[in-house]
Structures are given as structure tokens and as C-alpha cells.
């Protein structure tokens, strides 16, 4: 069973190791991470990734988040900026099938990645089953957190099927089950201030094909 992270890791070590990851990914994208000082304010890097099945090549300021690359450079504004600090989940997208807060990751870290946004899941007239279920159960009101909720929902069902445990998984020796508690726990990084949670759970449960 995969372990999500090493529990022995201190917070400080985690920060250091995250920073190293940033530097490495930056290097892979062609940036000279060693450069420092004033001129680095204007450093840009070419990065190529696939978005919703289309190859994209962008020359981006290294500080550009994946979220802003999508919204401000590719004009895929379905992915929302709610907090820009990884606190709300409105910016959730799928990177190589796993969900990620796109505001907490730099675009240049995603060389070669396959990114799916809400626009790639389905379109008006040909909705993804999760999008259709959100409409059916009124799993939203203002709609601003909705793309993130839907991307997260799709990934959550995959995570459970892949037997990745969560905080509420009772028994690690039996396969994780799609239960209301599991869904609620795993969706808790996606805030909905309109408070559509009860309806969202109904929508996810229907798509999961299990009784609520």
C-alpha cells in the first residue's frame, strides 16, 4: 500500500524537501535555479504540457502558478482562484490523473504533464457524469467552487478505488470503501461557502454507484 508521506518527517524537513522539489523541477524545465538577485524577478522559462488533450507550449515567468498559466495565459478560466494559498480547493485540477491545488504549484514544474481541467471533463451538451450529477442534485449555487469540487470528486472516487487510505479509513488491511464518511473526508479540501455539501454528496454518491 502506498504511504502518502513519511510520518517521521518534521515540518521543517518537509519545507526543505518541498523547496528542493521546486528547484529540481525548475531545472528540468530549463531554469537556472542558481541565479539570484534582481534579474531573477524577470526570469522566464519555456514549458510544454498537455491541457485537455492539447499540447501547449508557454514561455512563463517562473513565478507563474499552474493556476495562472491556465487562467491568464491559456484563458481556461473554468479553474477558479478562490484564495491563491491552497486553502479553498477552487483551483483543483487533475495532473496525470491526480488532483492538485493548481495555485500551489508552479507551471514550470509540469513539463510533459497531462493536465485536465473542468473544460476537459465535459462540455455543455456532453457533460461528464459528475457534471450532470451536480446539475441534477443542485450541487452548487454561485458556481465558483464548482469546477474544483467536480475535479476533486472525480479524483476522489479514483483514489478510493486505488485503495489510497484517508484519515477516516478504519481498517488499512481491507480495501477502502466508497462511503459517505470517506467522500466527506476526502472532499474537505474543497470549500463551498454556499453550503451545497449535502447535495454534492448525493451527486458523488450517484456517480459512484453506491447507496448514500
Amino acid at each position, binding site marked *: 500500500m502506498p504511504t502518502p508521506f513519511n510520518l517521521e518527517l518534521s515540518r521543517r524537513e518537509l519545507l526543505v524537501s518541498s523547496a528542493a522539489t521546486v528547484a529540481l523541477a525548475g531545472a528540468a524545465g530549463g531554469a537556472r535555479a542558481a541565479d539570484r538577485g534582481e534579474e531573477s524577478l524577470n526570469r522566464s522559462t519555456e514549458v510544454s504540457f498537455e491541457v485537455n488533450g492539447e499540447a501547449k507550449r508557454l514561455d512563463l515567468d517562473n513565478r507563474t502558478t499552474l493556476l495562472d498559466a491556465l487562467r491568464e495565459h491559456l484563458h481556461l478560466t473554468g479553474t477558479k482562484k478562490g484564495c491563491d494559498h491552497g486553502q479553498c480547493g477552487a483551483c483543483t485540477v487533475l495532473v496525470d490523473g491526480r488532483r492538485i491545488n493548481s495555485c500551489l504549484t508552479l507551471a514550470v514544474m509540469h513539463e510533459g504533464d497531462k493536465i485536465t481541467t473542468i473544460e476537459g471533463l465535459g462540455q455543455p451538451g456532453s457533460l461528464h457524469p459528475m457534471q450532470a450529477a451536480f446539475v441534477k442534485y*443542485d450541487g452548487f449555487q454561485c458556481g465558483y467552487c464548482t469546477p474544483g469540487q467536480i475535479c476533486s470528486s472525480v479524483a476522489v472516487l479514483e483514489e478510493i478505488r486505488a485503495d489510497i487510505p484517508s484519515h477516516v479509513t478504519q481498517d488499512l488491511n481491507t480495501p477502502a470503501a466508497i462511503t459517505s464518511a470517506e467522500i466527506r*473526508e476526502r472532499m474537505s479540501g474543497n470549500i463551498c461557502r454556499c*453550503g451545497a455539501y449535502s447535495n454534492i454528496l448525493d451527486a458523488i454518491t450517484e456517480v459512484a454507484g453506491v447507496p448514500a
Partner: protein
Amino acid sequence: MEFDKPATTNPIDQLKVVGKPVHRIDGESKTTGRAIYAYEWHDPKVAYAYGYPVGSSIAKGRVLSIDSAAVRKAPGVLGVVTTLDVGDLEKGKYNTAKLFGGSEVQHYHQAVAVVIAETFEQARAAAALIRIDYAAEKGRFDLKAEKTSAKTPEPSTEPESAAGDFQAAFSAAPITLDAEYTTPDQSHAMMEPHASIAAWNGDEITLWTSSQMIDWWRTDLATTLGIEKEKVHLMSPFIGGGFGGKLFLRADAVLAALAAKKIGRPVKVALPRPMIPNNTTHRPATIQRIRIGAERSGKITAIAHESWSGDLPGGGPEPAVMQTRLLYAGENRITAMKLATLDLPEGNAMRAPGEAPGLMALEIAMDEMAEKLGMDPIEFRILNDTQVDPENPERPFSYRDLVGCLKLGAQKFGWDKRPRTGTKREGNWMVGMGVAAAFRNNLVMPSGARVKLDAEGTVTVETDMTDIGTGSYTIIAQTAAEMMGVTVDKVAVQLGDSRFPVSAGSGGQFGANSATSGVYAACVKLREAITAKLGINSTDVVFEDGQVKSGSRVVSLAEAAGPDGLVGEDTMEWGDLTKTHQQSTFGGHFVEVGVDVATGETRIRRMLAVCAAGRILNPITARSQVIGAMTMGAGGALMEELSVDTRHGFFVNHDLAGYEVPVHADIPHQEVIFLDETDPYSSPMKAKGVGELGLCGVSAAIANAIYNATGVRVRDYPITLDKLLEKLPDVA
């Protein structure tokens, strides 16, 4: 059209479309990411620049100087606009705190500059290079400390009310309660940050923004910029939540407008999330004292509700006592509000202003009183129901079925199984049930609309009404469909554009009833235009199946419209029915909680709301309003609190990590029941508001459930585990 007599039978009563569970007509746009919000407007021909705001780092004082030399030299910077550059700007009439301009700092994170650059990253980095010198002044930040200096606010706020002789009756009452309750400052925390894109064309400005009230913003932006209102075009077709936080013009709009003017290019500005709680408005904290005196039978003879809150000079009180004037009977009564001057950010409306914090206190007090009387809390409330305004007994409620809500709720929730206080245990969980009444007045606002019929038979509604998630698009389409005899898919709805007729806007739970009434009025005009054009007798005319029928004559709407189409436009105005009859909405909230005996953690297990709010225009969207409000009430009960730094005068937890709101794991399955009723006094729609009702009383129901579970009474919201822990039973 003026609504000055109770509604009789009208086309809405057909209920072919209105009242039906129609899915949101904007649902596909929102679930596929195609709905365009303020910051997302994009014309490929336009090179938008990015503005990044800078907030004051002091709470009160003056800006002495701003050094932006390093900012101007930073890569990509196109310009800087500072509050000193622009000087004093005229404040909009709906704002208490000024938004920008001049040297005076009224509150922390007040906007003092905006840095404009080619990219967001450049603007953000350059903004960090600004150097500002302030002269800080001592401010007042602590409501508790300022309570004694609080004064009676302006008469327009109705700060005091009285009937009978409270003092005498309270002294004489055999059973009394005298308790103090506190509610904290709360933040709207809508998901979409305040954001605007401004583009000038000569002396005219177009602003794409996120506004609940198009005309208020348009008026106040024009005032602030010193231009004619006609030169301002506002667009806000999708709003990522507001809850009152987007009722009034905000700094992002002013900064975008000034920045765009400065550099001669369109500029987009969003408030960074950590700036929102201190830069914008919040629900003010309250200290409330409630006294209730009753006979041994449970009949209330005396009731007093006083509330203290604070705001900036020129601001108003949080009207937390208002529901107490109307909710329960009692011959001898007083309410009073006192307002302290605080130099915190502006206090203003947040969803159910007044009733939300007021009922948080009153409905605990009712629970406490029931216990003192040895009565069931539902029985106690029913005994003290009133069908008239208790301060003016000659003035009846238009329609009031609070009792029906409580009785049905008790039955559906299994209230008879409520345990005796502190007796039910399930493993580590102490389990309890709580109830509270919900009450919120039904407000109406003038609301206009234009309805067009084209040669395809399509009906297009245009109004500056907004949909902040409330479902305006859908219920307006339903209203027009019902009136014109077409299906919803033949109706197009255009909202949130200042070129359209001025509507009620979204606030005070007046939006749905008022705006659909405006559409009703416009549709009446369009029906008249159609019958006049066809020369048919308008008394026997029927609009159905996409046709106009009169006697044996049947004409399709498409044909009736002809190549030039037809238009109806009107504004619904309101007579004095809200004065002659008290119009309110009612409900009962039922909650079951478990409290962990070892940790004091509260988990909500079940929630039910029974609502009586006139005709429900769309049970899907109305239910979503109510469950959303119940969720916000769960936040108010258990976690939401802006923590005040009383030394430096700001809200410390000013982002979505520090200001906790409910998440999925906090909310159980929620049930909502609407009583089947109509209120002909409210409007031709016979509907009332429901969006705020759902929040009113929820937090108290949770507090009462916690008491029932634990026997610990907490009168200081939010009810976090630290307030319970010491009083919980010992754990072996």
C-alpha cells in the same frame, strides 16, 4: 405597476412552470467552467494589465508619505496609483469607510495604493517594494472595553422600542431569566474574491465586477470617480457568492478604474484573499442581554432584548434585537441598541443582518427559559406564538405559521425521543437534540425588467438583477415562461448589466420575490402589447402552448411578435401592504449533535429545517438556499470568528485557513421541508424570501443541542471545544 392590494388569481397561479423543480438554467455553464466571472472577461484584442492592491499596515492614522521609486523601477511595472496621488475622493453613499484616496487611514488593510504591471507576478512582486510612512493614532478596537461608552444610534435605525411596562412585569414575574450572550465578528468568506476589470473609452468606463447590487455600485462608482452615472457601464452576470459582502461598492472597483485611467489600458484587480476580511466589511460582533419573565404556565409577560455593537464613525448598529419585537407575544417589552465607536474595518450587512446574531442569543434564551419552566421548548414557543405585531396588536401578520413549522418538524425529527439533558451516551459521544425558531422579515424592493418577444417566439428577459447563487436566472425564466405561456427553454435571461432596467438586486432575502414580481409586471405589459397588436379582447385572452388564444382565434407568439418583435417593460412598485400587515417568514430548525466526552468536539449528526415562506418558486433552488444557510449557521455555532487583535486593531485570521468555515466533513445530510402556502399580501408571486430565513436560528438550535447533550450552557459563540472541555464529565 403598483402592488397595493392583496393578489387575487393571476397567471402565476397556473403553476405550470412556477413552483416546479426546474434545474438551474445556468447549471451547464457553471459545471463546465463556462460561466464567466468578473476577473475572467477576456477580449483577445485587448492587452489587460494587472493591478495589485496594497493595504494599510496600520488601523488608524495618516499616510505621511509613499515612496514608490523602487516599485517604478521593477520589471514590467506600468504605473502606481497611491492614495496620496489621487487625494480625497467623494465617498459613495452606501459606504461607511472610504475605499481609497487621501491620507486618512480608517482601518487596517484600507487600500492605499495599486501597483500596475504587465503581469500578475510582476505587479505582486513590485507591490512588495513600496515604502509607506504612517503616523499611527490610538484606536478603539475592543467592543467589550467600549461597551460603556456606547451610545444610542440614529433614530432611523429604530434603536429603541417599548410596549407596556417591562420593568414592573419583569419584577413581578415568578420565573425570570437575565443572561448575556456574545456573538463574534464574522466574515462573508464568499468563494470568489472581490474583483474588477476596468476599461475606459474616452470619458466612459465599463467595469466587469462582482456585485450584488448593480445600480448601487454604478451610482457609488460614479460618485467616487466624480463622473456622471450615465458614463458608467457595469457588468456582473455571474457572482461567486456575496452574502452581503458585495452589496456595496468595494475597493477593487475603484482601484481598477483609477489604474486603467492612469495607464490608458484596461486593468484587472482582485483583492488577494488575505486582504479581504480587513479591507471589506464584516458582520459586527454583539454583546446581548436578554431578560424574559413568565407566569408559571409559561406565558411570557415581559421580554427585553438589548444589544451592543460597534462600528466606524458614521456606521450603524448590528440590529440584533429586531426579531424580538415580533417573534413572541408578551404585553410588556423593550428592545434597545447601543453603538460603540470602533476603528475596526467597516461593520455591515452579512446574510440575515440582525436576525442571525439576534436569534443566536434569543433562541438560547428561550431554551433556558423553557428549562426553568420545566416545559418542552417547542411547547413554550407555541404557547407564546402571536398572530399580531406585539407592539401594535391592531396590526396582523399577513400570514404566520410558525406553529405549523415547529409541530411538523417535531414529528419528522422524532423530537419525542429527545433525551433528558446530559443523559444519552453512545460510546464516547454525548448525544442531544436542539430546536430553535427561524424568523426573518419579508422585504420588498422596487424591481424593473424588460421582456422581449422575437419572431422565433423566444422570450428574452433583461434586468440588472443578479444571481449570486440564489437561482435568479432560473426563477426569472420560470416566471416569464408562466406569464407568456411558453416552456422554460423558450426563455433567455440576461442579468447583471447596468444597461437593463434597475431591479431589486440581491440582498435582504428580497431578491427572488421582488425581481420575479418585476418580471411579472413587464410580462403584463408585453401581454398587453401583444393583444393590442392583434386587436384582440384582453379580458378573455389566454397565453399557453406558445400561443395567444382569444375565443376561437389562435396566434403563435412568434407570429404575434412579427419581424420587429414586441417589448414590455415595467417596474414593480410597492404600496403600503408591508405597513398594514407584518410580512415575515418562519421556520423551525432541528439539530442532533454528538459531543465527544473526552475532547469536547461537537459533530452535527442530523439537521432539519421546516420553512414557511409563502409560495416556493422553485423547490430545488429554494432548498439549496436553505441547506446553504444551515451550513453557514453550523459555522456560526461551532467555528466562525474573526479574532480581533485589540492592540493593533485588525482581524488576525484573515484568510480561509485561519477563518474556519464548514467543510464537507462538518455537514451531515440535511433535510428541508417547505410548508405549502401562499401569501397574497407579499406580491403577485405570493412568494416571500427564504435565503436568509434558513440561517436564522440554526446556530442556536446547535447550541441547544450541545446543552441537551452535555448539560453545559455556552452563551459565547462560537462553541469551540475549549469552552466545553472543563465542564464535561470526567473521563476514566
